[in-house]
């Protein structure tokens, strides 16, 4: 503030201009200082690692010594890698299930709650579906591991209702293990997704709802002509998040099955993790990560294009 007052007196009109300029640069400086901490953090912990990931795939690298340039070696190896082929196939099946389960049950519950007439009941229902969030994800995984075991809860229930013919070690049987992991978490209502959908439904203008009511649109027709189109942007967001998540299933196979039995629950990201963490082949691991990244980005872009149609 002092510069503004004293500079013109000292340096005349030319000084006044530079003082104003100095003032502007001071404001720029303040702005840069405000964003600087964010950029230091994301630069060191996100952008640089992402750069290492993108370039690491073209090297042989044990994670400690300097990487050695390897050209396309790792990608060549990936083409002939049977485990990777299995992991890709598993991942596609899992992703299809996961994406559907991320969107449909949460939307259905949001829509059901939205049409409950009493304010109080709506609030209560929303709370009921948010409360399970206090259960740590890892506990859900460990608990479902118990449910799926030979002497676990699911077989106990099947026995109880006379279906003892279908009991099996759900995650020990290569026929069912992958589906067991993908279908974990019944009834699949995700609090985060449900609330996003609910917000979308709440933001439908009352005139639209009124007009639909006068037209006699109700039930399924209202659902497909009004509600689903009006929350399209929420569908898009959650679809993208689900696609990104479907490429990141590491913890579930790691904790439940270690990828087994055989390779039946290997996902691409779990294979990437194992290649680096258990076998120290960081170069090959990064090559897998890079390919996975490209596929995820491509699928995200594709989903956006299809949405636009």
């Amino acid at each position, binding site marked *: 503030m002092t510069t503004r007052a004293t500079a013109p007196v000292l340096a005349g009109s030319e000084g006044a201009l530079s003082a104003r300029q100095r003032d502007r640069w001071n*404001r720029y400086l303040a702005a840069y200082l405000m964003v600087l901490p964010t950029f230091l953090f994301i630069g060191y912990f996100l952008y640089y690692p992402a750069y290492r990931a993108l370039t690491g795939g073209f090297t042989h690298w044990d994670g400690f010594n300097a990487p050695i340039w390897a050209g396309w070696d790792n990608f060549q190896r990936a083409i002939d890698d049977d485990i990777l082929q299995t992991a890709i196939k598993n991942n596609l099946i899992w992703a299809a299930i996961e994406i559907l389960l991320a969107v449909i049950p949460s939307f259905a519950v949001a829509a059901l709650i939205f049409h409950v007439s009493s304010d109080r009941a709506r609030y209560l229902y929303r709370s009921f579906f948010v409360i399970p969030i206090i259960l740590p*994800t890892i506990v859900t995984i460990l608990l479902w591991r118990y449910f799926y075991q030979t002497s676990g809860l699911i077989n106990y229930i099947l026995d109880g209702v006379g279906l003892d013919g279908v009991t099996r070690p759900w995650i020990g049987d290569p026929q069912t293990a992958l589906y067991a992991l993908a279908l974990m978490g019944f009834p699949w209502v995700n609090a985060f997704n449900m609330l996003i959908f609910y917000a979308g439904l709440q933001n439908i203008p009352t005139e639209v709802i009124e007009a639909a009511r006068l037209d006699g649109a109700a039930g399924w027709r209202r659902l497909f002509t009004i509600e689903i189109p009006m929350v399209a942007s929420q569908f898009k967001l959650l679809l993208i998040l689900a696609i990104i998540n479907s490429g990141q299933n590491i913890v579930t196979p790691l904790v439940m099955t270690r990828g087994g039995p055989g390779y039946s629950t290997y996902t691409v990201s779990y294979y990437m993790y194992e290649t680096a963490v258990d076998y120290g082949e960081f170069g090959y691991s990064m090559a897998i990560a890079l390919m996975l990244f490209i596929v995820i980005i491509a699928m995200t872009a594709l989903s956006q294009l299809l949405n636009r149609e």
Partner: protein
Amino acid sequence: MNRASGLARHLILIVLALLALFPLAFLFMNSTKTELEYSKDPLGLPTSFNWHNFTDAYDVVIRPIFNSVVVVGVSVLGIVSLAAMSAYAFTFMRFPLRRLLFVMVFALLLIPGVLTLIPLYLQIKRLDFMGLSNSWGGLILPYIAGGQAFSIFVLRTFFGGISKDLVDAARVDGASEWHILGKIVVPLSIPVLVSVIVINVVPLWNDYLLPSLLLSEKYRTLTVALVSLQGNAQTHSSSQFGTLMAAYVISCIPLAIVFTFLMRYYVQGLTSGALKL
């Protein structure tokens, strides 16, 4: 017809809510049982009350819970402080490269964590000279980085709704940008700041991969401790089943406390409409 469909709606919602709440109920019911009691009837109410399940579990999980609370608590405060500064600059200030810098933050939302997990781990290891890779700091710093994109995005949307005239008037009065941020914008934004904090708590509290790679036993977070506890219970006798269930029940308490007081903010944060494409 309306009446009947309304009833059906309530019925479906109640059944689904009960199913969604079932895992919690299952934990509670079995946390005081003996192994024998559990294997006879896993769905029944407990007939005995083995309080020692809880005292045994408490000894195992209390230190990891403390570690998790420290890591997550410091991380979310760091996230929201840095994000508020950046969101302020992006909303209220004009400066060269503003647009590009914002796009650089926003693009982070599209980088899957799985891509950077391994190099991030190596990157944290490089900070060993600060004693970081094997203590709380080794998690806190990358967590602060990871929370920026989402939080800046939400805060910028909210700040955009604050009257620009108010900010300009303060500038004319000679207030510095830091002063406007601290004395005007932050006080007006307390609810959304709390929302951002609560929304960030959940994924950090649940994170398993990074802590499992980094931390030694002393600094182990809750998720890592629960997985190794389960491993122990299996290699040793399975009589520890009740202890395991009790440990899971205890592990729900911190988020239960957070959500008892702040669920409103979580719900408001997600239903404010800031999140869409």
